[in-house]
């Protein structure tokens, strides 16, 4: 049983599972869980935006909900107020999120990580309060609802997300594409540049990397991911609300990412899935599921500081090597600025 075999088998099993969800899940459990899994996919993309910044560039952003919100409202307002059809609205949401990320990133990525974390919250809070106060436009915390335009027309028949199976596959395709792009990015020269900055940003500037520019690029890319997930969320729920721009939403994504495993490809997916599944299962029997979530967060940082996927990678590494490997320093030890 080599490491490669196990990982390949897992990958295939995972892919098969995901592709057959609209049929296997209702048969085994319940129709409702198809939409839960759809939600998990959407939120894992949001967690991936946190992961890109924190796990690969070393920037802890606590305000990704801001770009999620721009993606969400871009779609909602695009459809509701501007009468846009599906794809233009999608595009508007993503463009809005990326633009906002660029504008706020210009200021934010100059700061060292403590202040960066704080300013990302501050920016997201400012816009949260703005959204709440502009209730006629945004619906505030209550939000706005809208009807979904079709995704595309085939032979005169409109195909849209109102069909749960189509919706599931649409989300799956979008999320998979984004994860694939992330995968290519991490293994590209730019990706290695990110890792260098994460590891030692002083050294990175000394070898000639423009740390500021690279961080800004990463920030906009993360804004893209958050924007896509926000747009998908709006499509999924036909709904947008300022509540999803609040810092607690950002905070949850940070927890999902770190518990799942920051700096790993699938960490955000695992972490998001874990917490949402627990929430769904526990809350149907006991209303105080937040206690479990809180306890899980605490226990996992004490016993699995590199996250679940990090733990798994550790086991796999031991499996794949014969000689003893000295334990590498924890990737989560952020180095202080000199």
């Amino acid at each position, binding site marked *: 049983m080599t490491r490669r075999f196990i990982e390949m088998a897992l990958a295939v099993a995972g892919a098969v599972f995901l592709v057959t969800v609209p049929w296997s899940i209702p048969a085994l459990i319940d129709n409702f869980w198809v939409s839960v899994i759809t939600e998990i996919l959407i939120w894992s993309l949001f967690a991936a935006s946190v992961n890109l910044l924190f796990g690969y560039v070393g920037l802890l952003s606590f305000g990704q909900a801001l770009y999620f919100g721009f993606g969400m409202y871009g779609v909602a307002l695009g459809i509701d107020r501007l009468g846009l059809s599906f794809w233009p609205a999608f595009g508007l949401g993503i463009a809005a999120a990326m633009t906002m990320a660029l504008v706020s990133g210009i200021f934010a990525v100059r700061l060292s990580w403590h202040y960066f974390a704080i300013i990302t919250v501050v920016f997201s809070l400012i816009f949260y309060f703005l959204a709440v106060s502009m209730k006629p436009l945004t619906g505030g915390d209550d939000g706005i609802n809208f009807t979904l335009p079709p995704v595309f027309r085939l032979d005169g028949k409109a195909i849209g997300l109102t069909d749960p199976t189509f919706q599931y596959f649409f989300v799956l395709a979008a999320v998979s594409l984004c994860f694939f792009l992330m995968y290519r990015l991490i293994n*590209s*020269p*730019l990706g*290695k540049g990110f*890792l260098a900055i994460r590891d030692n940003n002083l050294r990175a500037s000394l070898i000639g990397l423009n740390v500021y520019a690279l961080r800004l690029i990463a920030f906009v890319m993360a804004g893209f991911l958050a924007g896509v997930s926000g747009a998908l969320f709006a499509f999924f729920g036909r709904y947008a609300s300022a509540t999803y721009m609040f810092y607690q939403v950002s905070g949850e994504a940070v927890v999902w990412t770190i518990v799942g495993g920051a700096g790993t490809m699938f960490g955000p997916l695992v972490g998001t899935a874990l917490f949402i599944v627990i929430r769904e299962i526990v809350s149907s029997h006991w209303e105080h599921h937040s206690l479990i979530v809180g306890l899980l967060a605490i226990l996992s940082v004490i016993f699995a500081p590199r996250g679940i996927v990090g733990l798994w990678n550790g086991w796999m590494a031991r499996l794949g090597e014969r000689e003893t490997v000295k334990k590498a320093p924890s990737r989560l030890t952020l180095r202080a600025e000199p």
Partner: protein
Amino acid sequence: MSEPVLRTENLTRRFGGLTAIDNLSISLSGGRIHAIIGPNGAGKTTFFNLVTGLLGPSSGRIYFRGRDITGCRPYVISRMGIKRTLQVKSVFPDLNVADNLWITRQARNRFLNPFRAATSDKETRTRVEQTLQQIGLSALAERPAGTLSYGDVAMLEIGMALISEPSLLLLDEPTCGMSPAETSRAVAKIRDLARSIDIVIIEHDMDVVFGIADDITVFAQGAILASGNPAAIADDERVREAYLGRPEDEDFMEEASHA
């Protein structure tokens, strides 16, 4: 008369009430290994920090091969060809050894490609393999740099200096903390490098200094105390005094007098 590699004009750097670099006008010519020595707190590392752009001067100017680099950002100065190592060995701990070299090489490019796989860049890969052989770390290529022994990290730093093909290399106490065997290895490598690269080295190990330096400049309290070839410096009374004056550096005095 050829342009000096590195030249400063009345360079001053203050930190609040403390003057770390005091009206320093130094001129280092090419083709020779320069050593900078001096007691602790003399401003040697501050000088490197100013040259590489990590600090801005309070006043004065810095010229690299005739170009005014005063106030330029660190990565800009790096791209001009000035590379340095740090006093505390500093690499990319979570990247493996090969990737450390890889990214150092790639950092020269203005544009880092986000689409192609990193491994597809043949030119860089070949250079990385060559450099690994030159520094003797080929066997450790896949190991995370953070797990390397101290001596190997130092060699990796030298490898990173090599692969970046600098025009001027600033080494800050490269043999600090090394065993005698590691030190000889490092000294040999530095001599190799000096054949094609201009080098300025800060060192406390007097054997190393008097062994490889062509010119020595002695810093004290942010200014030049003395400069000249090794023999002249060894005989200089003021140099002995500067070291003698600080009891904790008595062993430096010992070494300087035996050089």
